[in-house]
């Protein structure tokens, strides 16, 4: 890359010619405030917080979109800049719903932070407040337009990264609102409930549908037997909510906190992930041997499933019929576990702590109720669990490590890596390789399916078979991959798709990291690193070697793919209408 010489605040810098002023300044540790900017996702210069003086330019320029060039001279601080930024921010605040005390984003709000940084003490303008209706009909996502600052990060995430485009800016001027078409609810349009919009929202305009109250009520109900399960990605992110560095593993503390909250049993969804591998692995082997529909596509990600039902119904037969792991677990808890413990499943309440908002939607799918009761009764996101821990006054950081409960507390490294993109694929390969070769293979780290590349491909030699696999994460990448398969440009045996970029570690229910952090840290990568460390520390790293899972088949399910297994662990899909009829 060609380098250019520029000057920012008198500092002489040499930077690549494709840099913006903002990138150059950040590299030189010169701070420029931003609000709408989100690296790689939203770079549109809309909010005007990052304005700077460019020598020779008549007016202020937005640093986030202004390209550097040889000899460029920039000032980032001056009385005029300071005043302009302040007025702009005051105007944004002038009609903002400033109920900060009770806002879900208090402490992580980028607008609040900016107001503090720019030393706003008084909002001189009192803008007209339009009370816009809230949209809380979706089981996963609540939209509050009164808090929206129209930065368009969510629009860009939904449209450009996820390629779902459920929302966009509607109307103009003062009436502008980010919304689905015709003021419909997110529930009435093809929103896949992935929640990535929440993760990029700088304020409290988007948040998950709260389930903490339901869970508090259940915890207080002495007639209920309350069990909780936690997904692998939660344990590598929950610590962030308590000020711990990104990528800290807090498995033991998380279990301890859940026990303190009053759950009768704390289980590990990873156990069910191991089960998923056996069911899905068997499905894959059968489809390959019997000439079934290929590629087999994973079904753990409910955002992806909804996406497939809306946009790619022609691939529904390719989907694995396996329920997602926490739903499998729920069904088993209300059957196998209930029988074993002598508990009436009607009196059981299963809570899933998930990195995911789509699991909230999935939970209420009517077909996911194998025992006649919903497999799962409530889904909490990682953020909601953190809120409950705070509310209970638990000092999370000083908790001692505790371990998951038996039975069904045992899991393998294969179950853990479900939390990162490529993880399900790798876990499946570990098992499928052993089954097909009839021996225990030592080489179990399939690094070719790891990492943050949008679409990963691998050809893996297993005995006589060369297994062709592909992994996509983020629905924009999923689209690309599916289109390639559809047009015949690619063919695979096995495909893993995760709705969220980076997989579950970056799910829509994970702790929010603000733009400033996301500019310098790849949060998916850091959390995934912790996941793979967790895997390496596990004594058992292959799903089929999980003694708990083996016992479960022996005592209850028979064998993978059995009738009983199908009854409890498998499901079906149907095409989904995207929009209501509007004349």
């Amino acid at each position, binding site marked *: 890359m060609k380098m250019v010489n520029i000057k920012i605040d008198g500092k002489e810098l040499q930077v690549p010619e494709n840099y913006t002023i903002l990138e150059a300044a950040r590299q030189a540790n010169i701070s420029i405030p931003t609000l709408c900017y989100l690296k790689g996702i939203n770079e549109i210069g809309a909010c005007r917080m990052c304005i700077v003086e460019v020598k020779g330019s008549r007016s202020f320029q937005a640093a986030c979109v202004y390209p550097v060039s040889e000899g460029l001279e920039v000032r980032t601080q001056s009385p005029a800049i300071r005043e302009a930024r302040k007025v702009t921010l005051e105007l944004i605040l002038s009609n903002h719903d400033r109920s900060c005390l009770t806002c879900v984003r208090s402490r992580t709000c980028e607008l609040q932070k900016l107001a503090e940084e720019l030393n706003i003490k008084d909002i001189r303008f009192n803008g007209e407040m339009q009370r816009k209706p809230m949209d809380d009909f979706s089981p996963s996502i609540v939209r509050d337009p009164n808090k929206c600052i129209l930065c368009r990060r969510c629009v860009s995430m939904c*449209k450009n990264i996820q390629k779902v*485009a*459920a*929302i*966009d*800016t*509607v*109307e*103009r001027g003062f009436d502008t609102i980010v919304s*689905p*078409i*015709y003021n419909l609810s997110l529930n009435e*349009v093809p929103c896949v409930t992935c929640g990535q919009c929440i993760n990029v929202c700088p304020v409290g305009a988007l948040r998950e549908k709260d389930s903490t109250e339901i869970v508090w009520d259940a915890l207080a109900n002495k007639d209920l037997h309350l069990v909780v399960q936690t997904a692998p990605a939660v344990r590598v992110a929950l610590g962030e909510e308590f000020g711990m560095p990104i990528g800290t593993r807090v498995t033991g503390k998380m279990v301890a906190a859940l026990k303190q909250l009053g759950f009768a049993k704390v289980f590990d969804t990873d156990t069910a992930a191991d089960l998923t591998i056996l069911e899905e692995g068997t499905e894959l082997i059968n489809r390959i041997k019997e000439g079934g529909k290929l590629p087999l596509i994973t079904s753990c990600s409910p955002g992806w499933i909804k996406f497939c039902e809306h946009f790619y119904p022609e691939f529904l037969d390719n989907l694995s019929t396996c329920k997602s792991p926490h739903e499998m677990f729920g069904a088993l808890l209300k059957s196998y576990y209930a029988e074993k413990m002598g508990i009436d499943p009607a009196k059981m309440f299963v809570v899933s702590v998930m990195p995911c908002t789509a699991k909230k939607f999935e939970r209420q799918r009517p077909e996911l109720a194998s025992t006649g009761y919903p497999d799962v009764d409530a889904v909490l996101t990682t953020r909601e669990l953190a809120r409950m821990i705070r509310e209970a006054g638990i000092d999370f950081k000083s908790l001692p490590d505790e371990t998951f409960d038996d039975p069904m507390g045992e899991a393998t490294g294969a179950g853990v890596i479900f939390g990162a993109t490529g993880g399900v694929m790798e876990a499946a390969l570990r098992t499928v390789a052993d089954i097909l070769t009839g021996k225990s293979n030592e080489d179990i780290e399939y690094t070719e399916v790891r990492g943050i590349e949008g679409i990963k491909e691998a050809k893996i030699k297993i005995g006589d078979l060369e297994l062709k696999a592909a992994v996509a994460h983020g629905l924009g990448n999923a689209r690309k991959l599916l289109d390639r398969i559809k047009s015949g440009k690619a063919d695979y045996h096995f495909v893993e798709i995760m709705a969220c970029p980076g997989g579950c570690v970056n799910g829509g229910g994970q702790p929010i990291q603000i733009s400033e952090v996301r500019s310098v840290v790849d949060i998916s990568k850091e959390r995934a690193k912790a996941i793979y460390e967790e895997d390496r520390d596990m004594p058992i790293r292959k799903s089929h070697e999980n003694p708990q899972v083996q016992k479960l088949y022996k005592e209850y399910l028979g064998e993978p793919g059995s009738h009983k297994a199908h009854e409890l662990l498998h499901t079906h899909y149907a095409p989904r209408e995207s*929009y209501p*009829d*509007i*004349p």
Partner: protein
Amino acid sequence: MDKGTCCCGCIDEKEQMLESIMQKHKNRKGALIPILHEAQELYGYLPLKVQRKISESLDIPLSEIYGVITFYAQFSLKPKGVYNIQVCMGTACYVRGASLVLEKLQERLGIHIGECTEDGLFSLEVCRCVGACGLAPVMMINGEVYGTLNPEKIEKIIEKYEKQGKVQVK
């Protein structure tokens, strides 16, 4: 629905015409706006099914198309009356009392901006400058310009169209 046929199986001429409008502009940059204009001329407004067809044809998300339609005052999401009244709210018309004219029209017709009378005869909308500032305030009915308006002149104009009724419209 199949291309060019309606629910009863007959050939839907409008859909075929929409198809050819889209084909005409498709591979040009900035095709969306001219297509929306011509589609609106064809249907009188831009119903969801038309937006969806355009979205598929241009590979532009439906939400983005809807955003464009609601951004520009020229585009309408609601069916229009036989006589579409557009009241200019440009600067010159505004300062010369366009809002009084608009108020009178709403009262006389019993509808708000963006609505259509129950008998389907009149619809009312506001528009930006029509380039006849010398005649401000101005309104257009089906493209015909009425200038130097005041609330008193409205009754006679509306009456004329009421008499004309639904006939004599192209």
